[in-house]
């Protein structure tokens, strides 16, 4: 997998196309696995999209007592294996970003798998392919670097100068699986 997911939260217009697209993805069983939420409903109508970070060292998998969360060779953290998941929700509480969802009826966890059937072949995941405002993008590593650099410059122009320890606050979210 050569590409990375790139999120710019403030670009989100709250259309929820990504959620509709997620429901259509193979194996998602018509349930969306991503989130579109209000930052603060009483302040503004600003929304943000949220999906799994595909952590390299995933907390969700490490807290799973059944060892049900598998990581593919590309590094995608898959949804729980249905035959193993005992439905304890440890993953939901362990994940630092509140990503795994839980189905009480079917007694299993399900989470963003970055549309593994697509991204495996470097095809953009469902959410990124429909986002009209480019809040979610699936792009080359170089392009991501370029965007980040420009963002940093913009921040500097606006007078937000990073100090040694908070440079990370000045660049937008990027994540995904990148293997050279």
């Amino acid at each position: 997998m050569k590409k990375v997911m790139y999120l710019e939260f403030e670009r989100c217009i709250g259309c929820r196309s990504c959620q509709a697209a997620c429901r259509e993805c193979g194996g998602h069983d018509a349930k969306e696995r991503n989130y579109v939420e209000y930052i603060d409903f009483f302040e503004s109508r600003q929304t943000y999209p949220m999906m799994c970070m595909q952590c390299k060292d995933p907390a969700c998998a490490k807290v799973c007592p059944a060892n049900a969360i598998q990581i593919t060779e590309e590094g995608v953290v898959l949804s729980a294996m249905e035959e193993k998941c005992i439905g304890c929700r440890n993953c939901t509480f362990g994940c630092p970003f509140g990503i795994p969802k839980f189905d009480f009826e079917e007694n299993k966890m399900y989470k963003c798998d970055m549309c593994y059937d697509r991204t495996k072949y470097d095809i953009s995941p469902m959410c990124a392919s429909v986002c009209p405002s480019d809040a979610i993008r699936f792009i080359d590593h170089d392009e991501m670097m370029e965007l980040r650099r420009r963002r940093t410059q913009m921040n500097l122009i606006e007078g937000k100068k990073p100090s040694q320890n908070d440079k990370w606050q000045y660049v937008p979210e990027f994540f995904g699986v990148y293997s050279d």
Partner: protein
Amino acid sequence: MKGLERSFYSKASMYSFIVLMVLFFLLWMSTGQFTKVKWASSGYMIASIIFFIGMTIRLTAWGLRPATQQMIKRSFQNMKTKKRQKRNTKAIVTTLVDNIILQKYIFKRGIYRGVQHWLIAWGCIGSLAITFALTFNWMSFKMVDPSTFAVVVFGFETLKMHPESIFAEMSYNALNITSSMLLVGLVMAITRRLKNNDLKVTERAEFDLLPLYLMLAMTVSGLVLTVSYKFLSGWMHPQMALIHQITVVVFLLYFPFGKLFHLPIRPLATAVPMNYQEEVGVDTKNCIGCDELYSNDDQITDVQAILGQQNFDFEMQDGHKLSDYCPACRRKIRVMNHLNMPSPFGKTMEEPVQTNNGIHIPGFGRERNETFYEDVKGEK
């Protein structure tokens, strides 16, 4: 236990040794000091012994994972607590009946899947039980006199009945019944695997398909054996018996290491109602951010312990852990951090959460000298 463990190479070898000793003793008892060992089925016997050792090793390895250990530890603690006995019994009984015997949650995933899985599961467990009982001679049948038929367990005659009663018929045909269940379930499962494209997303041939075809080979060869001696007066019987034995041996050797290993994991599901959620879907712990109910104290304690053991540091400036917030608040915290805005909870994290996602950006990690920033500003 600790002292005993030190005399062995590892936990797994200790448990394997104990299991071997128990098997040896049971065999000794049931075969009349090894005088009645059935050598024709020695293949089954050796494979079964390896099956038990494989199972022991895999279960030990699984139990050593911090997450599993924590959950098992709390289960044992709760089982010992007098006050919780009612809740424990209820948890064990409901899990046994709903999840294991009836497998209700799979029926909720679809009737077809439910039927298919139930048939395979019980066909498989039944066949395994009968195979072990017969190969180790734990159970056998005996004609005491022409009108009495007895079930012999460990060399003792127990149940006695008329050879033409329904129960007797059922015991002659027990393996045929379980293998017919397996056959129907397997055909359903294989059809589903062939037809449903959604399944192909994460399907792996050696993991998802191999066990199905292996069980199919085993079931079909076993049923052919029955057909052969019942209707074809033993045509090709020795050859088929050998083929059947080979398939069963391969299956037994494969069982502890592949997809089928989920079977011994399932009973851990009792821990959920017993330790964490007494009623399905009813939470008792409030989120410290939004005050909504999202979990329960014991589970959050356990999750934090497991994370701590594995060096995950999800502590925030105010001393709370991320898991003290509900998932929705955690998502918000992440976004606020990245938008460089104060989070609705007033506290932000000092640093980004370390998820080590493997992308390193040259340039961002190094300190630049002050003039670099002046230059960038100056351009505008």
